[in-house]
């Protein structure tokens, strides 16, 4: 199946004045030191095998990641869908660059610390009573990762590059944002499954 590059027509290139070129950082550089501190902290937690630190990284990262996905997918996504184009773009240029740093950091914290925690607690063992719940969580996370890396992130980055053009293509931005809103909704719904699985593991 071949994809076709979208032709630029007179209609789609006629952007309102509010869509004039915006100068913003696609990756907010001032946030990188914070990300570095968080990631180094996680490596130290794993290297020192500190149960509290690993537990903290998994619970804090997982709680924030789940809350973010639920909020973006089920609350903010539908709101964005009803906003005017210029308002959507105004929001997106401020929100999406931050998400480029926040979400991957939370995912790394949660999964990295989570695997080590399961190892410490002996949950990885095949005879563990929660082994099947762990398998279910791997599958849910695998599907979410495929959607996030394969669809959501490319749409997110492409929108940001489009917005930095002298004349952004409005139709293309709308199409890519639709991908973003739908995929955020799907991952939000899948986070409900994660909540069920994790609370089952914690209470078994």
């Amino acid at each position, binding site marked *: 199946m*071949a994809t076709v590059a979208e032709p*630029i027509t*007179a*209609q789609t290139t006629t952007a309102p004045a509010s869509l004039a070129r915006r100068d913003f950082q696609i990756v907010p550089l001032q946030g990188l030191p914070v990300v570095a501190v968080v990631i180094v902290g996680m490596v130290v937690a794993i290297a020192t095998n500190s149960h509290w630190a690993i537990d903290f990284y998994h619970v804090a990262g997982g709680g924030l990641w789940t809350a973010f996905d639920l909020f973006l997918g089920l609350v903010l996504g539908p709101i964005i869908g009803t906003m005017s184009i210029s308002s959507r773009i105004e929001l997106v240029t401020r929100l999406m660059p931050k998400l480029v740093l926040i979400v991957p950091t939370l995912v790394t914290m949660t999964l990295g610390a989570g695997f080590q925690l399961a*190892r410490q607690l002996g949950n990885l063992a095949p005879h563990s009573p929660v082994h099947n719940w762990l398998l279910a969580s791997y599958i849910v996370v*695998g599907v979410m990762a495929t959607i996030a890396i394969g669809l959501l992130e490319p749409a997110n980055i492409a929108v940001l*590059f489009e917005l930095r053009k002298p004349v952004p293509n409005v139709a293309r931005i709308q199409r890519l944002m639709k991908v973003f809103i739908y995929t955020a909704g799907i991952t939000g719904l899948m986070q409900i499954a994660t909540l069920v699985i994790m609370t089952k593991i914690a209470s078994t």
Partner: protein
Amino acid sequence: MEAHVPEAPRGPAVPGDGPLPPIQQIAVAVIVLIVSGGIFTAAHLPRHVPQGPTIALLAAAAVLLAVNVVLLSRIGPFNWRVFRQVAGWVLVAYVVIAGMLEYVFIYDQTRGSQLVILTGMLAVFMLNIPILLGFSVARFQAPDS
């Protein structure tokens, strides 16, 4: 009887506008194969992991990655500057992520052929994502002059 409505006239296409190979779809397929291999491996740890399925998944992912590289190299006019810019920085990020995961594998006493397979899966994953993101952005840019 319905009257025939002529198609609205379309504006001029950008240089190089035309069919592009399914690089994005193939890259997503590579992610699916690698994630499946990761789930299969994690489901068996810390016991012995049967290597046949993981080697098959890794080989299929590597072949698709190679196909993507060939398809990418055959694209005519394309914005290679933006592709390199995006793919380059994404590669830097994924080298860090893959390095951390490799550290965790070794820290968790993964050794021998299992370590080789996991390292191969990481390498394919690390190279696939920059191609996916670089292509996803560059395809919407005017080709290099």
